[in-house]
């Protein structure tokens, strides 16, 4: 497997060199000798870029010092202006903004090529999907060791246009992409291009089954969202439709390659834990909504080390840092120019950066129904009070939602006032049904509003789990459970963090399911005291 992935990586690079229209390749590997060996294959004029690259470097801009020195406007050329191979290091750190800019560049010109070096360690740490979509290949070299490296054999490529494509290949590749659950229309196009390039690389004018197999394995496997069952590929023959009498369709042009064989080639490339990886990606998709917990800016917040940069809109110069950077050069510069005074060059400019932590909002969603009231309401209240104290110390915001009877009520809109919260909580009466879904809806509304205001909301649900009032207020246990699950899905899709605390005497399976749907931590707390509850919640919230 490891040797194979090395083979695939080198082949992909060869194909890319032959046909730049393939967009590029994403190489997932930690930096090391293996990756270094692979990088030797990349042409030396490739330009490197890093995730923090500025727009000016990408698109070009005014060259301040040259302009001032010459008295005419001199533009710096951006990296994206001349078509070339770009190497994006630490690709997993690329922001959506950078990914979008690069994606547009790849779309515009077929001569741009991107080699993304993805050093992600965790499964959910990977190249931005927008960019990955536009790169034909993806290889994973993390299992590959130096001993797996086999030298590539040089070939005598022929021109791409000399390769004759069988007419039914297009349909077959499209069908296979469909079977693998690939929605995007770029995938089959890449597979076709790669097939052609592989044949050209091998110096063949005819496509062979080997070309198609390796092309499909390289371009389709990493995009697959489901593993087709070999059985479900029934015995139905591929049935090439009675084709139009195309002149270039000779008998030698059609390729007799069964779908099963191709699918097998792709399946061999599929990682064993495909489903887990997909789940991880989904969870990530739910989270990445732009208003993260920490935002870097250059206006306010906690200061970070300053960094070399350009004076642009809104940036603030770190004068001390700039002087410090310029200091060692003063004598040299003075001697070179013969002028006295301070010499500061654009490269010395340091820009202040700040990190702004967005405030956290804890939305307590407390079950005050009859079943809870009898057993655990007092305990839950105690736990919330302890958490409140902790939240106060961290200057978190707190909101309180209670649900009982047929509806939920926002007892306390987001606040930092501890006294008010305690008072409302103490006055919370118990009794009635358990409209869990209604409680979650109210909490969700608060969470959405908080996100808009730039806070990071977390919903803590305290309940014994026996939801028995549906969203429309009817007493219908089954509907109530369905409603709760549906809202849990919405919460997850919106990327709201949650934690489910089971305050029942025995752990309730329905709540565990709910927590799973929410992608939330589940804390069953039978016979726990408030102190322990508070401690577990604090741990689950990651303090």
């Amino acid at each position: 497997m490891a040797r194979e992935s090395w083979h695939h990586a080198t082949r992909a690079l060869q194909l890319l060199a032959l046909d730049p229209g393939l967009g590029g390749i994403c190489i997932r590997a930690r930096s090391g000798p293996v990756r270094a060996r692979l990088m030797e294959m990349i042409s030396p004029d490739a330009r490197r870029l890093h995730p923090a690259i500025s727009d000016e470097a990408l698109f070009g801009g005014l060259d301040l010092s040259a302009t001032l020195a010459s008295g005419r406007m001199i533009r710096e050329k951006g990296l994206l202006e001349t078509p070339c191979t770009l190497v994006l290091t630490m690709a997993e750190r690329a922001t959506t903004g950078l990914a979008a800019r690069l994606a547009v560049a790849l779309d515009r010109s077929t001569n741009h090529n991107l080699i993304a070096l993805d050093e992600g360690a965790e499964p959910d740490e990977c190249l931005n999907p927008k960019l990955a979509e536009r790169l034909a290949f993806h290889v994973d070299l993390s299992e590959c060791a130096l001993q797996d490296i086999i030298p590539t054999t040089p070939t005598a490529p022929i021109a791409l246009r000399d390769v004759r494509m069988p007419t039914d290949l297009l349909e077959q590749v499209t069908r296979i992409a469909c079977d693998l659950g690939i929605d995007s229309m770029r995938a089959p196009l890449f597979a076709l291009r790669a097939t052609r390039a592989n044949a050209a690389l091998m110096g063949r004018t005819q496509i062979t089954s080997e070309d198609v197999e390796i092309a499909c394995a390289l371009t389709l496997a990493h995009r697959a969202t489901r593993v087709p069952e070999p059985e479900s590929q029934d015995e139905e023959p591929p049935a090439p439709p009675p084709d139009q009498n195309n002149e270039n369709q000779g008998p030698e042009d059609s390729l007799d390659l069964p779908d099963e064989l191709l699918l097998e080639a792709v399946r061999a490339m599929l990682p064993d834990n495909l489903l887990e990886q997909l789940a991880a990606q989904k969870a990530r998709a739910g989270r990445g909504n732009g208003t993260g917990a920490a935002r870097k800016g250059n206006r306010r917040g906690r200061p970070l080390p300053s960094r070399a940069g350009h004076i642009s809109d809104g940036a603030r110069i770190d004068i001390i840092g700039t002087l410090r950077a310029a200091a060692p050069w003063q004598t040299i510069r003075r001697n070179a120019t013969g002028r006295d005074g301070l010499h500061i060059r654009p490269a010395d400019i340091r820009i202040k950066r700040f990190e702004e932590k967005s405030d956290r909002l804890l939305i307590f969603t407390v079950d005050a129904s009859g079943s809870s009231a009898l057993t655990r309401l007092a305990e839950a209240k105690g736990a919330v009070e302890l958490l409140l104290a902790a939240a106060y110390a961290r200057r978190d915001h707190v909101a309180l939602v209670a649900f009982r009877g047929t509806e939920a009520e926002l007892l306390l809109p987001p606040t930092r006032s501890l006294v008010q919260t305690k008072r409302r909580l103490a006055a919370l009466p118990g009794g009635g049904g358990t409209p869990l879904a209604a409680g979650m809806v109210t909490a969700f509304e608060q969470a959405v509003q908080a996100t808009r205001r730039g806070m990071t909301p977390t919903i803590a649900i305290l309940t014994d789990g026996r939801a028995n009032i549906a969203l429309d207020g009817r007493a219908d246990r089954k509907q109530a459970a369905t409603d709760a699950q549906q809202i849990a899905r919405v919460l997850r899709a919106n990327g709201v963090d949650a934690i489910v605390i089971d305050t029942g005497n025995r752990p309730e399976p329905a709540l565990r399911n709910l927590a799973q749907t929410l992608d939330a931590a589940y804390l069953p707390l039978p016979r726990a005291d408030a102190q322990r509850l508070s401690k577990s919640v604090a741990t689950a919230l990651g303090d």
Partner: protein
Amino acid sequence: MQPFPFSAIVGQDEMKQAMILTAIDASIGGVLVFGDRGTGKSTAVRALAALLPPINAIKGCPINAATAKDVPDWAGLKTKRAHEMPTPVVDLPLGATEDRVTGALDIEKALTKGEKAFQPGLLARANRGYLYIDEVNLLEDHIVDLLLDVAQSGENVVEREGLSIRHPARFVLVGSGNPEEGELRPQLLDRFGLSVEVASPKDVATRVDVIKRRDAFENDNAAFMLRWQAEDAAIRERILTARKALAKLKTPEKTLVDVAELCLALGSDGLRGELTLLKAARAYAAWRDDTALTRAHVKAVAPMALRHRLRRDPLDEAGSGTRVARTVEEVLG
């Protein structure tokens, strides 16, 4: 390389229809295309330019003025002769700076001649044409604020670096994006007249068609373009005919009531929804070569004119398009 021809796009009828409607009546106010990766959003928007009939403008005018007296003084034009030019479709890239969007001090002139001159930006170039923003939901906030203001007033005001300049900037906004990557501010959403959601085709036959045409476009470009450019020209002709028909189109009172009732039932904010729906329905009727506006026209364009104007209901998993369709059925039957 020329963009992929509009008429060669397989399926995606709603998106194509929406673009044609704005081409017929620019006052509808643009199209927003939202959808997954690899569904042909950008392709369609880039293809739009070929559909637009040419406009008459003063040669060399930075704001594409129609008559000599509209040419701004700062343009410094000596001869003011009109010529025919393609409708401008200006691309607003994500990395664009504020200077480039609004225009700023002409640094070249400032340095070489020491004079204070204005260098027009993208908004000036987009006047009387289209402004296209790919990945509109990833646009920086300060650029969005700027666009909101200009799209509302139709005028770009530059007050900076000792310059004080205002010039008309009336353009049609066309945007595309993937909703998974970030939401659009409701204020900006509202500036788009129509919005469509696109998805990849689900059946293999259609997908094969898509791939075939793309393949032909890439590998047999000349023959492919020749064939589809003729179809694009036919659409352009039909757009011109529809523009003329639009003036003569009758709007019965009954349909106005339909439009108002529909918007009331949906609870869309403000009156912009009604106006856009009416304009879109009229453009659709003109495109269909009908003489009077009927309920059928309103029904056909209601989803694209209203779907982005509803209050977002977080619990509605089906999306607001379905909600509009359902209400249309209930109200108009």
